[in-house]
C-alpha cells in the first residue's frame, strides 16, 4: 500500500504508541482523584501540557486538551462568540475553512450572529485588504485557517494576526494541518486561538488541543467538572494526551528536515504529472503551500473514479476532505477558487508524509497516469 492521504490522518509513530501504553495498562487513574496513584496520571497530563507549550512557544496554562480538531475549532469559535456576544455579533471567516469551522459559523448564524465568508483569489488565498474591509465595530472574532486541508495553500495568518490585534479582535486559526510541521513554533503565528490535532502528527486520534491566549475571553462549550480550569469539562484522555505531546515534540524536532524532503518529493511528482498527463492542472500552485499537499485537476474524468482506480492499484488518495467523502457536491474550496463545477469534480488530493519516498511516489505516479488514461478512454466528454 502506498498511503498518500496524510491530510486525512497519519499512521501512529511506534514511539508514540510506546509512550502511551503505560497509561492504558497501569496508570489508569483519574487525574482528578485525590490519591498518589491518580496523581501520576495528573503529572503525565501536566508534563504533556508543558511539552506542547514548549514546542508551540506559549505558556502551559494556555493549552487546553480536547478530543479532536473539530472540538478545538468549536471551542474556539463558539467559546469566543458566546463570551463576547454582548459586545458584538459579527464573525469574519473564509469560504474555504474546514467544515468544523464553516458549519459552526453557520450554526451561530441561527443564534443571531452575522458571519462574513470571505472569498479567496484564484490561487486559493484570502486577501488581507478584503479582510480588513470586512471588519466592523461589531466584529468579535476572525477565524482563518493556516493551511487549507484540500490544497495546502497557506493563508496570510501572520499579517491577519497583526491587523486584528490593532483592532483588539480575537483571532483564531485552525492549524491542524501545520502545527508541529512547520520549521517554526505555531504560536509564532500570532493568533489568539490555535487548533491542533494529534492524529495529523503521527499521534493518536481522539487527542487534540486548543491554544488560547491568557487574555482572550472564552466560554466553555462542554460544561461539567472543573477539568482544564473549567474551560473543558470531562475526564482527561490521559494516554491520548501523552501521545499527543510525544507526537507533537517528535514532529517538531523533524519539521525542518521533513519540510524540505517533502517539498522535493511533491514538486518532482507534480512536474512528472504536468509533463506527461495532458491538461492536468495544479490547484493553488500560484500561492505558498505546505510542502506535503498537491491538489490536481484532470479534464474529463471524475475525481472519485480516479480515487477508486488508485485504490485498486494500492494507492490511497482522496478527492478532498475525508469529512466530505461521498458528498455529491464538488469541493467548496475549489469552487471558491473559481474552478468550474466540472473542474472541481475532476480533482484529487495527494498528501505526503513521513513514510513517503521517491520509489512510492514513482509508483503512485505510474498508477495515476494509467488510471487517468483508462478513464479518459471511456469518457464521453
Amino acid at each position, binding site marked *: 500500500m502506498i498511503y498518500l492521504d496524510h491530510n486525512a490522518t497519519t499512521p501512529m509513530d511506534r514511539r508514540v504508541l510506546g509512550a502511551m501504553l503505560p497509561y492504558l495498562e497501569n496508570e489508569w487513574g483519574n487525574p482528578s482523584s485525590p490519591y498518589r496513584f491518580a496523581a501520576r496520571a495528573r503529572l503525565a497530563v501536566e508534563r504533556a501540557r508543558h511539552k506542547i507549550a514548549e514546542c508551540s512557544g506559549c505558556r502551559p496554562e494556555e493549552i487546553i486538551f480536547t478530543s479532536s480538531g473539530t472540538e478545538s475549532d468549536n471551542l474556539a469559535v463558539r467559546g469566543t462568540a458566546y463570551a463576547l456576544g454582548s459586545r458584538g455579533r459579527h464573525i469574519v471567516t473564509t469560504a474555504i475553512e474546514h467544515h468544523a469551522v464553516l458549519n459552526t459559523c453557520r450554526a451561530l448564524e441561527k443564534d443571531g450572529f452575522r458571519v462574513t465568508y470571505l472569498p479567496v483569489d484564484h490561487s486559493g488565498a484570502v486577501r488581507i485588504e478584503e479582510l480588513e474591509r470586512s471588519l466592523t465595530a461589531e466584529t468579535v472574532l476572525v477565524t482563518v485557517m493556516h493551511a487549507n486541508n484540500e490544497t495546502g495553500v497557506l493563508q496570510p495568518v501572520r499579517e491577519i494576526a497583526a491587523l486584528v490585534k490593532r483592532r483588539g479582535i480575537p483571532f483564531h486559526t485552525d492549524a491542524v494541518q501545520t502545527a508541529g510541521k512547520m520549521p517554526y513554533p505555531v504560536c509564532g503565528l500570532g493568533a489568539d486561538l490555535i487548533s491542533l490535532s494529534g492524529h495529523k502528527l503521527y499521534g493518536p486520534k481522539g487527542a487534540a488541543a486548543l491554544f488560547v491566549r491568557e487574555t482572550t475571553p472564552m466560554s466553555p462549550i462542554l460544561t461539567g467538572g472543573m477539568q482544564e480550569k473549567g474551560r473543558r469539562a470531562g475526564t482527561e484522555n490521559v494516554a491520548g494526551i501523552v501521545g499527543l505531546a510525544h507526537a507533537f515534540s517528535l514532529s517538531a524536532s523533524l519539521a525542518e528536515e521533513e519540510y524540505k524532503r517533502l517539498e522535493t518529493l511533491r514538486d518532482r511528482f507534480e512536474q512528472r504529472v504536468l509533463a506527461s498527463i495532458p491538461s492536468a492542472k495544479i490547484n493553488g500552485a500560484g500561492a505558498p503551500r505546505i510542502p506535503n499537499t498537491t491538489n490536481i485537476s484532470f479534464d474529463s474524468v*471524475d475525481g472519485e473514479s480516479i480515487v*477508486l482506480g488508485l485504490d485498486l492499484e494500492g494507492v490511497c488518495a482522496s478527492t478532498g476532505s475525508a469529512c466530505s*467523502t461521498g458528498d*455529491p457536491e464538488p469541493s467548496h474550496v475549489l469552487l471558491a477558487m473559481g474552478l468550474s*463545477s*466540472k473542474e472541481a469534480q475532476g480533482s484529487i488530493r495527494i498528501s505526503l508524509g513521513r513514510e513517503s519516498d521517491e520509489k512510492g511516489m514513482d509508483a503512485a505516479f505510474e498508477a495515476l497516469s494509467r488510471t487517468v488514461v483508462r478513464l479518459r478512454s471511456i*469518457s*464521453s466528454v
Partner: protein
Amino acid sequence: MGSVTSKENAEQPEYSGPVLFYNDTVVDHFVNPRNVGELTESETDGYGLVGDPSCGDQMKLWISVRSGRIEKIAFKSYGCPGAIATSSMLTDLARGRSVEDAKRITDDDVVEALGGIPERKKHCSLLGVMALQAAIKDWEAGRGLKKESGA
C-alpha cells in the same frame, strides 16, 4: 491494509453515512466496463446523449438494431464509479434484447443486477436507462428514413 473493495473481504460491513462502498460486481464493471466504446456511423441506428458534465455525469449510448433486436450497443461515460458501472451493466442487460423488451429495463433492474449500489449513488443508474430510452427514441424516429431494410 486491503482496500475496502478487496475480494478477501468476504464479510463486507454495511457502510452508511458518507462512506462510499462498492461491491465486487460494481468494481468489476468499473474496471472492465462492458460494451465500452462507440459504434461507427454506419452501424448506428440510434444514439442517446444524456446528463451534463457540469452536474457530474454524462453518458453517450449507441445502438445497432437488427430485426427489432439490439444487436450492438456501445457507451461512453463520464462520471463517478457508480455512473460507469451502472452504464456498463445497463448495456449488458440491453444487448440482444428486443427493443420492446429493452424499453422496459428500469434503474432498479440495473441496481439489482449489480447486487446493489450505495444509496447516494442510486441516481447514477437512471442515467443509463435514460440514455437507452433516448437512443431507442432516436431509432424509432429515424426508422424508415434510414436503412430499415438494410439488413
